[in-house]
């Protein structure tokens, strides 16, 4: 447990370890991605230092609740900034208010306190008072609320790990980063560190096992940096929950952008088709050309290609790996429909090469590098995720050398 908390501090102290991967291809895109989720880089690079005094997570607000924890409120708002204001929204209703004088004093005192103040009784008391005020205003003592400070728009996300649920509110959310409130990568690290510290303090057993620690880290990543995997979430990954990402879905439903890492605009299908036509120039038979053109469009719309195209939009390593597995599974199904018995690698690899070529991912090598460097749990590389990633790498290598490229 103590070791794990040390690593939290070190993540803050060692914000970005980019040297190892910055020389990868497509590094510009990777850099952009890493700026938002570089917590794992320190983890991976083994640059975690002892005894480094962490920077304080100012203005990071965390709402935690855990029913089985005796002595802790059902939910509480931690106003680290000590401004003493709260704003709550629930089911379309919006309320705002101020902490009472004693609570505000406690919050301000806590804000001046050294790191670790998240655990102080005073701050907890202040948070409980704020929570109680918000609950009274909304007349909902048990409901979960989305809470914002008056001058710091934030986002409430769920963090679910090991059956312990935490609600996280942070202005370092992608929405705030996009709005210009903060653009430095350290801010994201501060938020991650604060959340992780709070999570481990309120539920120490999470830090006891590597599995739950990894699940916790992944959940926090998803909460802080956004995880656009909601639509195809199969619920099988650690920490997955239907609740997770609901804030993101709500914003999307309201027509707001989904996060700081918006996917690059996809090429219109027509452009792909035009390229396909150019490639097939010289085909004399007009009917054959039309057929071939339709075939190219079909390939471009194939589920496997769609999975591959979604890669750059995935924000976490696990999400990217799942997209790759999805692409392979879709390919296997496509091959099965073509009456290929017992699809093996001999069938799958050429088909994957074609799908990768058709997907026209702009930064494929960055996707591979990201998945490798930011996967929290490297054991996944032994399994089907690793197989999918390796297959994708091989397809890229084969396509990179024209002599190895599959026939078009």
């Amino acid at each position, binding site marked *: 447990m103590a070791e794990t908390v*040390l*690593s939290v501090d070190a993540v803050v102290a060692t914000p970005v370890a980019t040297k190892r991967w910055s020389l990868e291809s497509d590094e510009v895109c990777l850099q952009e991605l890493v700026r938002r989720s570089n917590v794992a880089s320190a983890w991976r690079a083994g640059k975690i230092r002892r005894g480094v005094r962490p920077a304080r997570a100012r203005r990071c607000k965390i709402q935690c609740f855990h029913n089985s924890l005796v002595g802790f409120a059902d939910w509480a708002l931690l106003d680290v900034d000590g401004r003493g204001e709260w704003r709550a929204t629930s089911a379309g209703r919006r309320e705002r208010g101020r902490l009472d004088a004693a609570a505000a004093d406690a919050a301000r005192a806590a804000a001046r306190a050294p790191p670790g103040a998240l655990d102080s009784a005073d701050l907890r008391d202040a948070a409980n008072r704020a929570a109680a005020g918000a609950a009274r205003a909304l007349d909902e003592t048990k409901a979960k609320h989305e809470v914002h400070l008056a001058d710091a728009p934030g986002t409430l996300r769920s963090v679910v790990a090991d059956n312990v649920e935490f609600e996280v509110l942070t202005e370092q959310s992608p929405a705030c980063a996009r709005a210009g409130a903060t653009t430095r990568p350290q801010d994201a690290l501060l938020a991650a560190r604060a959340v992780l510290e709070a999570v481990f303090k309120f539920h120490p057993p999470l830090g006891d096992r590597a599995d739950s620690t990894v699940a916790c880290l992944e959940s926090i990543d998803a909460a802080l940096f956004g995880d656009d995997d909601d639509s195809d979430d199969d619920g099988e990954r650690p920490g997955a929950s239907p609740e997770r990402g609901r804030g993101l879905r709500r914003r999307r439903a309201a027509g707001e952008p989904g996060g700081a890492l918006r996917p690059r605009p996809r090429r219109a299908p027509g452009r792909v088709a035009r390229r396909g036509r150019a490639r097939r120039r010289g085909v004399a038979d007009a009917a054959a050309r039309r057929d071939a053109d339709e075939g190219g469009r079909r390939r471009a719309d194939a589920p496997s290609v769609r999975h591959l195209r979604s890669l750059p939009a995935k924000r976490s390593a696990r999400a990217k790996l799942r997209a790759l597995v999805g692409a392979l599974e879709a390919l296997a199904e496509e091959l099965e429909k073509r009456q290929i*018995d*017992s*699809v*093996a*690698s*001999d069938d799958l690899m050429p088909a994957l090469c074609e799908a990768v070529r058709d997907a026209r991912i702009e930064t494929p090598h960055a996707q591979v590098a990201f998945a490798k460097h930011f996967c929290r749990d490297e054991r996944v590389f032994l*399994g089907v995720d690793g197989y999918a990633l390796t297959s994708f790498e*091989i397809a890229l290598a084969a396509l990179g050398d024209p002599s190895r490229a599959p026939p078009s």
Partner: protein
Amino acid sequence: MPIARFKVVLLGEGRVGKTSILLRYVKGERVPASDDPPTSPRRDAPHRRYSDRQVSTLQASYLDKRLSLRAGQSASLSIWDTAGQERFHALGPIYYRDADGALLVYDITDFESFQKVRKWVRELRQIVGQEIAITIAGNKVDLESSRAVPEAEALDYAASVGATHVYTSAKLNKGLEDAFAELSERMATRRNETRGPGAAGLPGAKRSSISIVDDPVAPKKKDSCC
């Protein structure tokens, strides 16, 4: 007791029966041979009867298999099929990295396929080193009458490179269980040897969960001027 997870790569020339071995071993399926009588549409084909589509949707390209080791430990094999086409041969090392074991398959009726095994062994030793456990499988022993690879040569070669040699027949379901069981035992033993007893359940050697490393004090650079 933790389940030991091992990555096993399956290598072999085209048509030596890699896919058949894999499906027969993991799913109990038999891939129909060319001389089999025609069957009804493939969804109703007998060899599909035991398919467990929920286990793997990548079919024969990647399969998981769990088995019990002699020491009462459980092992989970992640079996990676590899593309046999010539254009992917040079990319094989990407498949091999971090592999705990390899099953090299040749066809006893095809000497050329045995020659390829030598090449893969060299490559595996070069890329992964001595840590990888290798089993060489002479497949299609049901075609013993057409044997083209002398038994003594195959056995001597396997012994000379520290590999185990087994004979298999996917068609007759012969030797498959033994081949993978023996390979798993050796992989577990090697992992225990390299990382101490009880380490077999841990993931790959280069993997760790949280590592806290003190930064070495950087030596002060000397002034370039002298």
